[in-house]
């Protein structure tokens, strides 16, 4: 306990130097915690996004399968269309538990928030809600008919456009006025920004007769998935994408960025270790005479070793705690920039920092302290008292 107090006082003697070293360690720890938090957060958010699509298989028109899946997740222009007959054929399959066709289309709206942008409209049938039982109405209800000039708006789209049930919306370019009959509760997915219409109305208004962009399918038995996909490969002009593949591909794309950031984190940790060793070593050299006196009046090699080691551990532990706090507090800011930079960012929190991650980082910081303290502590412990005392003369 006495050694701990002395170690703490020693660090306080050179406040600026100690603080700078602690700062270096805390930045390295903050980068590491944010990175590890991003690793688990992105995976969780992506799983949530894909699972909340409600289906295991997505059938789209031929083209780049991942582009199609990303468009379905994220929205955007340039959708490929396929004949509705495909849906009519697939729906006969007995292995299917739930199935829903959808027609997604986008309209450029020059008057949109932020100086213009695309608004997403999605034509759906009531089977859409069966596949997404979590989509509940905040207000209003389902369309009055299959071909009604009505819309149901996602929560965020309604908030942005200040729409309530009974209000009107206008589709620029199509010169079409539609009535808002429902507003969905917030789901935390891309659906929150979509304007839903009856499938037939969408086909009519956007002049896409008998066209759809995707078919979402949920099977009765997950074990049938591979065979089901195999069977659909024979259908001309369509492609089958399993949501598991989508997750794998997006994670694959992200992993290259993760490798780069991990390298930066490793370099930051290496620099922090060198910084800690340098600080403690300087402190040992400056206190050579003092260490000599301590040994002359009875301090053992182990006492000196422990004293220097404690100083290193103090620095790393305080740096670890501060770094974790920094990572938690700046999490939203980091997330804001990460979302702006990523080609596809799932909805929800991308940086997930939990107690387990913080605890393991603290343990890592202590281990870092133990490792970086060995050499300076060894140098100090092995000083000869007489030589050490004379070194200042």
């Amino acid at each position, binding site marked *: 306990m006495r050694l701990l107090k002395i170690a703490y006082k020693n660090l306080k003697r050179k406040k600026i130097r100690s603080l700078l070293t602690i700062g270096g360690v805390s930045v390295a720890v903050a980068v590491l915690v944010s990175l590890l938090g991003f690793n688990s957060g992105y995976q969780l958010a992506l799983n949530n996004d894909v699972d909340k699509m409600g289906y295991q298989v997505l059938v789209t028109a031929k083209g780049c399968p991942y582009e199609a899946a990303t468009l379905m997740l994220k929205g955007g222009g340039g959708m490929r269309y396929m004949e509705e007959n495909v849906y009519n054929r697939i729906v006969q399959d007995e292995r299917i538990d739930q199935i829903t066709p959808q027609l997604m289309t986008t309209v450029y709206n020059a008057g949109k928030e932020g100086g213009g942008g695309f608004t997403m409209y999605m034509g759906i049938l009531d089977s859409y809600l069966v596949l997404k039982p979590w989509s509940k109405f905040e207000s209003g209800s389902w369309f009055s008919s299959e071909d009604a000039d009505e819309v149901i708006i996602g929560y965020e789209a309604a908030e942005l456009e200040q729409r309530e049930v009974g209000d009107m919306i206008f589709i620029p370019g199509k010169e079409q*006025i539609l009535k808002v009959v429902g507003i969905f509760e917030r789901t935390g997915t891309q659906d929150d920004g979509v304007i839903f219409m009856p499938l037939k109305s969408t086909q009519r208004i956007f002049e896409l007769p008998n066209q759809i962009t995707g078919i979402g399918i949920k099977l009765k038995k997950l074990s049938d998935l591979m065979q089901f996909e195999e069977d659909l490969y024979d259908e001309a002009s369509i492609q089958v994408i399993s949501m598991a593949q989508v997750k794998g591909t997006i994670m694959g794309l992200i992993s290259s960025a993760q490798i780069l950031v991990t390298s930066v984190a490793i370099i930051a940790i290496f620099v922090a270790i060198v910084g800690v060793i340098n600080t403690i070593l300087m402190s040992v050299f400056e206190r050579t005479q003092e260490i000599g006196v301590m040994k002359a009046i009875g301090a053992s090699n182990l006492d000196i070793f422990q004293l220097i080691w404690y100083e290193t551990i103090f620095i790393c532990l305080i740096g670890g705690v501060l770094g974790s706090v920094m990572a938690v507090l700046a999490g939203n800011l980091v997330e804001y920039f990460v979302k702006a930079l990523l080609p596809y960012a799932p909805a929800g929190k991308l940086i997930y920092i939990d107690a387990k991650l913080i605890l393991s980082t603290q343990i890592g910081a202590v281990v870092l302290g133990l490792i970086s303290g060995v050499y300076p502590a060894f140098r100090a412990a092995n000083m000869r008292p007489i030589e050490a005392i004379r070194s200042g003369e």
Partner: protein
Amino acid sequence: MKKIILLLLALNFVQIIFGAVGCSLNDPDRDVKRIFPNSTGYKTEYISIESRGGKELATKIEVQLHDVLNPKYEALSVDYSYYTILRGKEMIGRIHGVNQKGIFGGMQLILATDLDGKIIDFFIQKISSPHAKKFRNKEFTKQFIGLTIADFDLFHAQKEGKINKLISPSEKYNDDFKSIVRGLNKNLLLLKYFQFEKEISDKNRQ
């Protein structure tokens, strides 16, 4: 250390702030230079009714607006953007916007005012309407130049004034015209309570 913690806390709320601001300029640099060509800079503030008087202020605004604030889209916590325009260190005007519910969606109404709160420019940043072009037309928007909060007070007192002489660009969607008048009235009322009353109380305190 206290400052560092406050900074970190502020950074943590950055996303929340970005999300909650009601009506900011899409391109402030461009808009400020267009409206105030001799400006040298501007500073931005985000002010909510909640932070400047809460329910009591909201009631004052509702009385003078002769309408209630929509609890969902005109909540007390909604931040309004205020751009104070500078020439050197001298303040030369303000730009401020509000969101206003229209027939087909939210509208963003942006006002530029001089130091006395007189409108010197008005434009509609966002509007969804089959007649959007008519509402954005300069012939329509320039009618509002020169108006002050006193003109709206006259209008509510049912006295003849400039507001009664404004011409709607669309008979069919006249409700959007009424909404624009309401939105501008709200915008000038917010200016009065957020900026002018604050300036008076600051002066009194000195």
